[in-house]
């Protein structure tokens, strides 16, 4: 899907990122010398063992972490207000319905009420939740809650979609269904996606490009361009071969 991009400049750029966590027992270097360009409208997966700082990198992009060395830049206009985040847990406000949860992030952007409810409906339908608009999160299954979370991220018209292991807390069948959906949505309207995961097959299946990181200190050890055409098959030999390559780079 790399051909979908019209802008040849990277959407976001990490340059010489260094992150040190100070603790009582001493300091831990979470990220060292991390430089990476995330291409416009491309699906980039960030893979690595736990503790490699991949989530920290996402936090830096999301503006949730400002204490780091190096620089984070973007060619997108007003990136700070156009970040769609999907977390590992759905992180929905439990007292709001599915529709109200999506509306919540739109409201604070000054989008007028009429247009807001149209958008909310549109994006919930897009993730397959028509008819569930008025359900509270507690009435929805884990997979459906994560769909709401995805609708919320898409609804703000994100310049960059940041996804932090969004399917790792779901059961495998639900995760598989959501991966198919995510690719369907990405094919229909490509976004710049930065997708963090520790699931190598998931990375190989979803991404145009896989960035592999090592732990302690977190560093980029390899980059793989995945040129299997979409739609892909999760169990296909091609996906398995790319997954194998990722594992080799991780030295597992």
């Amino acid at each position: 899907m790399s051909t979908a991009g019209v802008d040849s400049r990277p959407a976001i750029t990490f340059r010489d990122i260094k992150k040190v966590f100070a603790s009582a027992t001493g300091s831990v270097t979470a990220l060292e010398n991390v430089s990476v360009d995330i291409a416009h409208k491309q699906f980039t997966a960030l893979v690595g063992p736990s503790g490699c700082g991949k989530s920290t990198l996402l936090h830096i992009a999301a503006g949730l972490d400002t204490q780091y060395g190096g620089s984070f830049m973007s060619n997108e206009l007003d990136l700070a207000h156009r970040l769609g985040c999907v977390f590992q847990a759905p992180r929905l406000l439990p007292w709001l319905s599915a529709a109200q949860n999506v509306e919540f992030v739109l409201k604070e952007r000054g989008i007028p009420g009429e247009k807001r409810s149209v958008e909310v409906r549109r994006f919930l339908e897009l993730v397959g939740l028509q008819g569930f608009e008025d359900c509270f999160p507690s009435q929805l299954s884990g997979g459906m809650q994560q769909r709401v979370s995805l609708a919320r991220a898409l609804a703000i018209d994100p310049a960059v979609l940041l996804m932090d292991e969004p399917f790792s807390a779901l059961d495998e069948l639900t995760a598989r269904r959501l991966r198919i959906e995510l690719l369907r949505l990405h094919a229909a309207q490509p976004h710049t996606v930065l997708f963090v995961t520790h699931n190598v097959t998931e990375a190989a299946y979803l991404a145009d490009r896989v960035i592999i990181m090592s732990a302690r200190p977190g560093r980029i050890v390899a980059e793989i361009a995945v040129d299997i055409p979409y739609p892909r098959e999760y169990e296909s030999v091609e996906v398995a071969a790319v997954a194998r390559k990722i594992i080799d780079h991780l030295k597992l």
Partner: protein
Amino acid sequence: MSEISAKPEFEQEAATPKAEGAGDSWRQMAGPIALRALSVVILLLLWEAVSRVVSADIVPSLWRVVTVFVASLDDGYVWSDMAITAGRVVVAFALSMSIALTIGMALGTVGWFGRMFDFWVTIAAAVPSILYIVVAYLWMGLNDVAAIAASALVVAPSATFNVIQGVKAIDPGLSEMARAFRVPNRAILLRVLLPQTLPYLFAAARTGLALTWKIVIFVELMGRSSGVGYRIQYFYSLFNMERVLASALPFMLVMLLIELVVIRRLEVFLFRWRREEAR
């Protein structure tokens, strides 16, 4: 993947059915209400039976108490007593909640402060109510300020615990989500943080109010010359059982109704999103 489905299906993801019809919920409600009514009838019959066995001076019959109450309406003190007591309850309740909110928020949010001083709240809760009342009257004299201060101090500690719990129940993940979506701080406070603590604040208010009116009556009995508590004390000194009951029961009924009808309903409505989780 052989084909990309245009519309997702939900076989794998079971959804809880949407709220059942109103008719069903009425039928579900009617049973418990009938049982509740029956239990009240049994209680009143039991009262009547006991009053017939024991001397009426000790346990006056219900009918007698109602008659005495109606007769006492002519004396003109009944409504003014209730109004005065209600006024003290409202002020004492507001004061205790303000104390609980201020101290609870401080103890719950500032880590070292909480670890250092939350034991004080435990101690404050362990002080017998009577001690607060006596000390307040001794320090400030037999006046309304002392009465209200004493009532508020009795109620505040347990309410403070509720507030601390509420602050600690805040999920940092939700705040992080809101910050990632660039929700302004004011909206995070009002629409993300406050609703999370609201069930606990509500619990603090509900149990606080129930405790406040009982304490206020006691405080009045100890040192005020007006209000429902004073009236109970007055008829007690005359050994008039009928009038003790006729003074106490009406106010009790009013408070019980407020608790059962207004507060319970409000709670069910406000926290309907929580009740769903119980299913």
